[in-house]
């Protein structure tokens, strides 16, 4: 994503604050995966994976990896007490049934209405949607973690997505290296700026109007 490791962790650390005790959470690939590092161990949070685990734990120590125990990205993981395995159909039954409290995923574009585009760049890369459509459409809260701007410096938060959608009106919150933004009633509300960025900087680099209701806090 072109963000430094500290910035990536800052975003992940902020996202983890949204996670409450006992929640069922799915973390996507990339920065979302880092969120797991910041969920307190005593919260009883159950991490869900599309390949069929509820109760995924952290990475095993070197030498203790098991090729048949991995996350949806194919990387070795462990389990926490209370975990279970199931087939992929059941993994998505859990999603469609609305049992996921939070999904954290990456995106190419997010619109002010909460539309998300994250699986197709026409004429360039078409990786496929994987489980993103199911997750973004069916989770109670969808948090998007991404760069505030693309490689050319264009805003990724826009009035209307130009890329093919993953979900219509699915996102509830956007966290970037510059800001924490809520999407409420199809409007963007600036909640926090990320240190060391300013409100002016965020407004300027966002492609849709930002509402500022209360004092904007700075997240360190």
């Amino acid at each position, binding site marked *: 994503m072109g963000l430094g490791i500290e910035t990536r962790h800052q975003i992940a650390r902020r996202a983890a604050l949204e996670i409450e005790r006992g929640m069922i959470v799915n973390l996507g690939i990339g920065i979302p995966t880092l969120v797991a590092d910041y969920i307190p161990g005593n919260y009883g949070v159950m991490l869900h*994976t*599309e*390949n*069929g*685990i509820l109760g995924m734990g952290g990475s095993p120590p*070197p030498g203790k*990896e*098991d*090729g*048949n*125990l*991995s*996350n*949806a*990205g*194919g*990387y*070795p*993981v462990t389990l926490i007490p209370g975990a279970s*395995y*199931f*087939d*992929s*159909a059941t*993994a*998505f*039954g859990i*999603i*469609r049934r609305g049992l996921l409290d939070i999904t954290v995923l990456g995106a190419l574009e997010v619109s002010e209405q909460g539309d998300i585009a994250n699986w197709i760049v026409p004429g360039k*890369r*078409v*990786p*496929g*949607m*994987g*489980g*993103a*459509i*199911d997750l973004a*459409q*069916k989770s109670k809260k969808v948090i998007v973690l991404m760069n505030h701007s693309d490689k050319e410096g264009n805003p990724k938060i826009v009035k209307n997505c130009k890329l*093919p*959608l*993953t*979900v*219509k*009106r699915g996102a509830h919150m956007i966290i970037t290296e510059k800001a924490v933004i809520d999407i409420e009633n199809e409007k963007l509300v600036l909640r926090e700026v990320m240190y060391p960025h300013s409100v002016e900087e965020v407004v300027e680099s966002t492609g849709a109007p930002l509402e500022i209701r209360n004092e904007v806090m700075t997240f360190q």
Partner: protein
Amino acid sequence: MVSQSTEGSSKTKQISIEAAAAHFFNGMTLMVGGFGGVGAPPGLINVLIDRQIKDIYMISNDTGFPWIGPGKLITEKRVSRLIASHIGSNPEAGKQMQNGELAVEFIPQGTLAEKIRAGGMGLGGILVDVGFGTIVEKGKQTVEVQEKTFMVEPALTADVSIVYAKQSDTYGNLIYDKSARNTNPLVAMAGNVTIAEVEEIVPAGQLDPECVVTPGVFVDYIVQSKGVDWKWVWELKQDTK
């Protein structure tokens, strides 16, 4: 009254991997179990390559990595049509899709899993609302049920399904290994011929019936696995550290 037998099914479904290869043919629809290559049957994939099977219409969750699982079939250019949810971890699949060598139909992961499950369960299809408002809904038949609108997604079956399991008995009852279960139980049910590659094969009666995940009735043949012959991505990263 049916007479009680303590023998059970004495006929073993175990065959050699060479005998299994006789069930593969050019142009077949092939379902492959696994997720990112985890839980894909390594020996059966290799024999498909060795026997020069081509023009495969493959149905799999994803295309693994270029050297892992069903990804090998892509790299070897044996697949001409593909149904999958994701090909992002296999750049070779992306390349072949761009240059027109590989026709790809993308289906949201949960919908794909359920279409396969429906095929295995003898259903005509499923009703699903995942993907409304996106290009997924394009060209889909819709139906209103209990005042909600759904897309009709036809069930999927295949000429041949290949899966991987940790344990089976000679009747083909399957037990999987941790997250290598993933799509395997679904794929196992949806093949007109299902071949399971198994790490440990035991005589019928040696598995706890309570622990069987896929009933052997869905499984036509079992072959002994020699384990994975590829390096996982995380192993390669460790090697280069």
